[in-house]
């Protein structure tokens, strides 16, 4: 067999094996992280957004279907559940910090969580979206592992919610720094808390790029908002719909 025939045969084998697409996913993320560092952590250069774009580009160029891709990427995707459970660790580790800032944390948690659900659902209903779309929008500030579960249980579209969670995460991570600078807010605990509450893991990854305190409070907000959203989404939606 000639060389190009062998290369083709190897490609046919590799392109359908989980190994290739798992490697591509991690490689794309490392590349995106390098780009982010190289840009001096400019908020527009968001690592999640760039790695998704890179992978989509490669899949399109090679004509690979999402289901083939997901056979490999599912190993990374699966870790979202355990990573959500793992939020208990920073929550526990920072319990003194929570106790010291107990009132601001609780007030901002309830205010932010309610605002996220009511604002998303309310604006959607005002603009004439059907109930299923409004329900899918409601939990979008919670982390993916939680938001998708809420949407499923309340009659939303889980795939649409996944899309909205990512969209909200990336958008929040990009605008949080310029917005807070514009508002002249210098309290990094408050800035981080807002980033994590609004934009979950993607916001928290951004907050850690900016400042350690911001990152810690962001992780805290993401964990607390995940729990609170899962507890109140059904009640709030019951009142709105």
């Amino acid at each position, binding site marked *: 067999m000639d060389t190009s025939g062998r290369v083709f045969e190897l490609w046919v084998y590799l392109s359908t094996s989980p190994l290739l697409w798992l490697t591509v996913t991690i490689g794309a993320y490392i590349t995106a992280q390098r780009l982010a560092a190289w840009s001096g952590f400019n908020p527009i250069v968001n690592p999640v957004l760039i790695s998704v774009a890179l992978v989509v580009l490669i899949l399109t160029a090679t004509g690979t279907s999402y289901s083939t891709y997901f056979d490999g990427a599912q190993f990374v995707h699966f870790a979202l559940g*355990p990573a959500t459970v793992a939020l*208990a660790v920073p929550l526990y*580790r920072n319990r003194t*910090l929570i106790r010291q800032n107990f009132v601001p944390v609780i007030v901002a948690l309830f205010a932010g969580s309610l605002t996220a659900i009511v604002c998303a659902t309310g604006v959607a209903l005002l603009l004439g979206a059907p109930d299923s779309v409004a329900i899918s*929008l409601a939990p979008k500030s919670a982390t993916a*592992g939680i938001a998708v579960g809420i949407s499923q249980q309340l009659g939303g579209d889980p795939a649409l919610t996944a899309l909205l969670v990512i969209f909200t995460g990336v958008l*929040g991570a990009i605008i949080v720094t310029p917005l807070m600078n514009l*508002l002249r807010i210098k309290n990094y605990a408050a800035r981080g808390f807002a980033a994590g509450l609004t934009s979950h893991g993607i916001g928290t990854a951004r907050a850690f790029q900016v400042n350690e305190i911001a990152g810690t409070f962001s992780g805290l907000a993401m964990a607390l908002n995940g729990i609170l959203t899962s507890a109140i989404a059904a009640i709030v939606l019951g009142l709105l719909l």
Partner: protein
Amino acid sequence: MEGLFVILVCQLIGEIVVRTLDLSMPAPALGIMLLLAYLWFADWRAGSEDSPAHTRISGVADTLLKNLGVLFVPLGVGVMQNYRLIYDYAGTIIVVVVVSTIVTLMVTVGAFLLASRLFGAEGAGNGH
């Protein structure tokens, strides 16, 4: 390995409880609370702040959380290929996400600052 095992067990129990009792709460949310209780119990039983069980779980959790961004990539790729989902309501959805993201950021940061000013919380912003 033991740290990962405990995290998975918490998620598994969460999954079993949620499905059996038909709760409107996702399993990982319950898992967070179970792991929190476990960490508390492990430290209480060892009588120290960093029991060996606690340290093992911290290692795994920190690795997972440090790389949280990459875990969203497969979902994000699926999302880009599912853009037809928002086709019918694209305008509405974009307006909703942009407005609610900005409003939520501002309300949260405002509430945090107002509450720290009113109740004179110490340590906010200068951490540890």
